[in-house]
């Protein structure tokens, strides 16, 4: 997939080009994360401002760290980086294993949230 010359590369590889590498390749063929389960609305925040010095990380790992300087959900990471959610989960597992991200599972886990959550959401919506 290497571009034939610089200008061709400039033409194709911009923010809107989408992945040039197949998602499976980014994860080294792995379908599941090494650690963690990542709900679509688990919230992710980077623990460091830059992971560039870490060996063994791909550009997509670094892109996640850069994006998660502000808190993002797993779904948002996938949407912003234009990657399938399954791929993002694998990459997040790598980052979590290196303590490069913190992850907060959704409220109530697999169950239902408690009453205070309903009240907080209602009040928040009314304030919109």
């Amino acid at each position, binding site marked *: 997939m290497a571009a034939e010359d610089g200008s061709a590369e400039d033409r194709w590889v911009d923010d809107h080009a989408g992945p040039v590498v197949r998602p499976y390749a980014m994860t080294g063929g792995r379908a599941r994360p090494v650690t963690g389960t990542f709900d679509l*609305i688990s*919230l992710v925040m980077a623990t460091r401002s830059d992971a560039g010095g870490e060996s063994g990380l791909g550009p997509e790992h670094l892109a996640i760290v850069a994006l998660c300087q502000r*808190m993002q959900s797993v779904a948002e990471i996938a949407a912003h980086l234009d990657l399938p959610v399954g791929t993002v989960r694998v990459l997040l597992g790598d980052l979590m294993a290196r303590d490069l991200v913190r992850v907060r599972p959704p409220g109530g886990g697999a169950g*239902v949230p408690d009453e205070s959550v309903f009240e907080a*959401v209602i009040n928040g919506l009314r304030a919109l």
Partner: protein
Amino acid sequence: MDYGHSERAAGAPSLPTAVKILIAGGFGVGKTTLVGAVSETKPLRTEEVLTETGVGIDDLSGVEGKTTTTVAMDFGRITISDDLVLYLFGTPGQDRFWFVWDELALGAIGAVVLADTRRLADCFPSIDYFEERGTPFVVAVNCFDGARQYRLDEVQTALNLDPGVPMVLCDARRRESVRDVLVTLLEHAMKTWEARHGGIEG
């Protein structure tokens, strides 16, 4: 005792929790419009790429060879407070993606079934799904320009809806209207929750 690596790296403030509401209904009924009307970001799209193994015992049995399917979901976000973030997920419309719904519905605080009176039958599968699953939901009748106006009780009868399920008229393009739908849902969900858990306090 396994709390994973997740929470606190030395002294870092805790992250907010996220909750979600599902927006269901037939294709083209205005789910993404509704999400966009209240979301603080423009609706985003996320994709799950599913292979045969991911599909499990779905209806791909007759399909030859390796198959991948992409299921797209549009979603938006509302930051409620420093501690709480609400996500709204439009459900993928196709019936064969029920297993994606299962993932989406897990932990959801409730659902909005958006109905178009010109194609009421389109929302039957969503209603059946949430009824069966016990997910609290409301039916919001989207009033498009030019859409024939029905009375809510007519729609309720046509949908054979349990009278306990709130129904509201809405305009999925208008922020205030969508906000009111969501408040109605949350109030209903809270009542449902209290009915299920209230016995403890008598």
